[in-house]
C-alpha cells in the first residue's frame, strides 16, 4: 500500500477512536448533570443554575419551576436546589476535565486505551 495512504488510514482510525471516546465522556457527563429534586428532574447546566440564582437574588425563597420534563415542580427551598445543582455541575465538569485532559495527551490509539 502507498505509504501516504497507510498513514492517512492510521490517522483516520485514530480520529474515529478519539471522537468516540469523547462522545462517551459527554454521555457520562450528561448523566452526572441530572438532578432529581422534589419529584422533578433538573439539568445542572448554566441556564438552570443562573435562573435559580436569579430567583434567589430577587429574594425568592421558594418557587414553582418547570423541570426538564415540562412539569411544574414546587420547590420549597431554592437554596437547597441550587446547592444540589452546583454539586452535580462541579462533579460532572471535574470528571469531564480529567478525562478530556487524558484524551488530549493521547497521541495514538494505544495511549487512548491506556496500554
Amino acid at each position, binding site marked *: 500500500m502507498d505509504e501516504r495512504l497507510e498513514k492517512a488510514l492510521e490517522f483516520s482510525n485514530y480520529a474515529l*477512536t478519539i471522537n468516540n471516546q469523547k*462522545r462517551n465522556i459527554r*454521555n*457520562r457527563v450528561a448523566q452526572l448533570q441530572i438532578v432529581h429534586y422534589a419529584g422533578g*428532574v433538573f439539568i445542572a447546566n448554566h441556564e438552570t443554575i443562573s435562573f435559580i440564582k436569579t430567583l434567589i437574588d430577587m429574594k425568592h425563597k421558594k418557587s414553582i419551576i418547570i423541570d426538564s420534563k415540562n412539569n411544574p415542580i414546587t420547590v420549597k427551598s431554592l437554596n437547597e436546589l441550587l446547592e444540589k445543582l452546583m454539586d452535580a455541575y462541579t462533579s460532572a465538569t471535574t470528571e469531564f476535565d480529567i478525562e478530556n485532559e487524558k484524551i488530549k495527551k493521547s497521541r495514538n490509539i494505544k495511549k*487512548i*486505551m491506556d496500554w
Partner: protein
Amino acid sequence: MNEQKGVCFFAYNNEQLDYVKMAILASKYVKENLKLPVCLITDEGSDNWLSQTHSKELIEDSFDYIVITNDEMKPNHRRHYDSPWSEFAAQFNNSNKHKIYEYSPFEQTLLLDIDYIVKTDVLLKYFDGDSPVCMFDNALSVRNELPSPQERVLYDAGIKMWWSTVVYFDRSNFSKLFFDTWAHVADNYAFYQYLYNFPSRLFRTDYCVSIAVHILSGMQDTQTHLHIGNFDDTSLVNVSQKDDIIETHGLNEWIIIAHDQKETWKNILVKVDKQDIHVMNKRALERMLPGLMEEFDV
C-alpha cells in the same frame, strides 16, 4: 413486610450458557456499586448446578435471596453471536419475566438482565424518583451508534421499542397494572405479533413491554408518559453480540473491540469506564469472568 429496595436477576441455564455463573458476576457489580441486596430467581436444575459449581460462601455472599420457580417455559430458540464470525443457538427461557412482580421480595425492585453490568451508582436515584415503572426507550452501541431500525421500532411504521433489560418498579397500583398488561400480551403473543407486525419467531420481552406501554399510553407513541419513566432520556449502552471484550483493567475499565454494523470486518477499540453496560455477547462475558472474579477476590 418486604425489604425496601433490592435488585433481582432471572437466570435459567441452558445447554450452551451458564446464566447463574454470570448472575454471580452481575451481582458482585451490583453490590459494589449500588450496595443493595440481590435476589436470584431460577429453577431447580440451575440452582442445583449453582450449588455444585460454587462454594456456599460465594453463593450466600452473592445472593441474599434465591427464589425457585417451576414455570413452564415456551420453546424459544435464540441465535447468539460471538463476534461476526461465530454463532450458536440455544433455548432462551424468558416467558415468565412478567412474574417478577410476584417473585420479587422487595417493595422497590430493580430487575436487571444478568448481562447488564452495573459500574456506576446512577440507577440509585430512580428509587427516589416519581415514576412507578422505569425502562430505557432508546439505546446506543459502544460506538455511539443507534441500534438497527428493527431495534428502535417494532416494524418500519411501528411503535417505539422499549427495552426490558432494566426495569425499575414499585408496588403501586400502576405497577401491578403494567405487569398484568405485560402478562396479557405474553399470553396472547401471536395475536399481538399480528396486530403490531413485529418480526421474528423469538419471544422477546422487549416487544411485550413496548406493547404494554403503548396500550397504557392510550394507544399513542408518547414522548413522556405520566407513570413510566425512561431513565431521563439516557440510553441503554449495548455491547453488541458481534463486539468482543478483549481486555479488562481492574473492575471498571474494559477495552472492547466494536464492529461496524454495515461492514462487520471494520472495528475500532473502545474504552468503557464508569458506564453501565449491556453485554449482549455472553461468550465474551464468560471469557472475562474468571479475571473479573479475581478482581473481586473470589
